[in-house]
């Protein structure tokens, strides 16, 4: 039977199959009751009324939300373009033999991995303008996301580099390459391909962080949803539509990550040890 954990269950016998059939009927009933309760809760408070949902069938309203989605994707890609190379550089710095390179890189990753993006947003929004640092709105959103994002991505790269077989770098050093050459020509090309699905998971995290445009009043999807919800007097409906839009985009990225993961039959040789890097998308999406 597909989908059942082979670790836990044997193939069920006749008695087991009967029990499963009874449980299936009960579960369908229970879930139906749950859905009915939720729908009733909406109906009783008049949130199923046609005029509450009508706006989302109009193109002008939906195009406003899709415009917000466009800016969400724009900010996400901007942050990705900055923080992915930055993360790679910080990871290489942290693995460097020179203390004056590795130490600042380690401090950077440890600090910005431990700080909430929201706090940094407020710093750029409220604390820095009085000191004279007043960035344009999009950068008030993008800079904090890039700071925390590049620290997280640096750790992804570091795990990937550490998981690469030692022989690769040793061979490169043996034929006389320098540290920079080894990293650029040998390590990074081999590490990026298997890390691609994990980097897509990080892209989802950047996209989730872009919802903080709600705080800096940058007109991305969530903030557009807030404005729209007040305009059409249907906040819960608007936020539900916004949530579904986010789910669709994230679901597409996840599918892409799984697709790439499956297509990569030819992976470079990784050390199989206790501290192997998280090499699957599901393991890394925490």
């Amino acid at each position, binding site marked *: *039977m597909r*989908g*059942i*954990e*082979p*670790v*836990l*269950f*044997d193939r*069920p016998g006749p008695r*087991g199959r009967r029990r*499963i059939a009874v*449980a*299936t009927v009960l*579960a*369908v009933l229970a*879930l139906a009751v749950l859905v009915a309760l939720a729908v009733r*809760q*909406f109906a*009783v*408070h008049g*949130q199923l009324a046609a005029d509450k949902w009508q706006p989302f069938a109009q193109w002008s309203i939906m195009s406003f939300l899709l415009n917000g989605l466009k800016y969400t994707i724009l900010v996400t890609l901007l942050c990705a373009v900055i923080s992915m190379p930055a993360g790679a550089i910080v990871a290489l710095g942290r693995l460097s033999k020179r203390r004056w390179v590795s130490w600042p890189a380690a401090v950077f990753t*440890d*600090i910005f*991995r*431990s*700080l*909430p*993006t*929201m*706090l940094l947003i*407020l*710093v750029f929004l*409220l*604390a820095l303008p*009085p*000191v004279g640092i007043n960035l344009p709105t999009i950068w008030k959103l993008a800079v904090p996301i890039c700071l925390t994002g590049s620290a997280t991505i640096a750790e992804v790269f570091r795990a990937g580099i550490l998981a690469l077989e030692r022989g690769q770098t040793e061979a490169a050093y043996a034929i006389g390459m320098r540290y920079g050459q080894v990293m650029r020509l040998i390590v990074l090309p081999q590490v990026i391909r298997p890390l691609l699905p994990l980097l897509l998971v990080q892209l989802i995290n950047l*996209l*989730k*962080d872009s*919802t*903080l445009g*709600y*705080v800096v009043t940058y007109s991305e999807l*969530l903030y557009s949803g*807030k404005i729209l919800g007040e305009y059409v007097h249907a*906040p*819960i409906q608007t*936020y*539900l539509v*916004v*949530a579904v839009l*986010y*789910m669709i985009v*994230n679901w597409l990225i*996840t599918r892409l990550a799984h697709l790439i993961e499956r297509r990569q039959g030819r992976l470079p040789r990784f050390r199989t040890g206790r501290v192997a890097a998280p090499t699957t998308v*599901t*393991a890394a*999406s*925490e």
Partner: protein
Amino acid sequence: MDIFSHAGDLGHGFLATIEIVVIGFVGAVLIGTVIAVCRISPVLPLRAFGWLYVEAFRAIPLLVLLVLCVFGLPWIGIVLSPFWSVCLGIALYAGAIVCETLRSGIRGVPFGQVEAARAIGFTFGQSLRHVVLPQAFRAMVQPFGNVFIGVVLGTSLCAAVGAQELTYATKVLSLRVGSPLVWYGCAAVLYIVVTLGSAYIFGVLERRVRFQR
């Protein structure tokens, strides 16, 4: 002005953050366990429900979920205080991640272990109790640490929806008293202490419970 006369406000915010973290994390573990049981059960509708839950709540950004809980739920007659709304949002969100952590932990147990348990005549419950779960739980310590840190960092989003916690207290304090950089610095130090501290504790725990092979 001096820091110490206002440090109490920051302390209140910090305590609220800890409360949200504890309630949210415990709630997430409960929800995640139930969903994980659904996802691995042989009953098809329950499996579908678990799959849908995990896919939905992992794809929705936490802030959207918090906004829905705080500003959406009252419209369908579920009126909670901001504090309990954000706790609910965080528990629902982290529950999906806990579910996946539990599942991948169980999947990590080598199949031969279960076969061996069955071969020596263990029942389902016995093999679960003596063979599968002890190994699965040990592999889950580190991932659970990551979930916990994620919850700690996630609580700062509560400030965006008006729940009083550390980030919110910092914002209010810096607007009221001035010298914002000092207050944000203090908050940053508190966050770093909590996250790095819990990472250290989970690391120690992981080494303690690891099987020596």
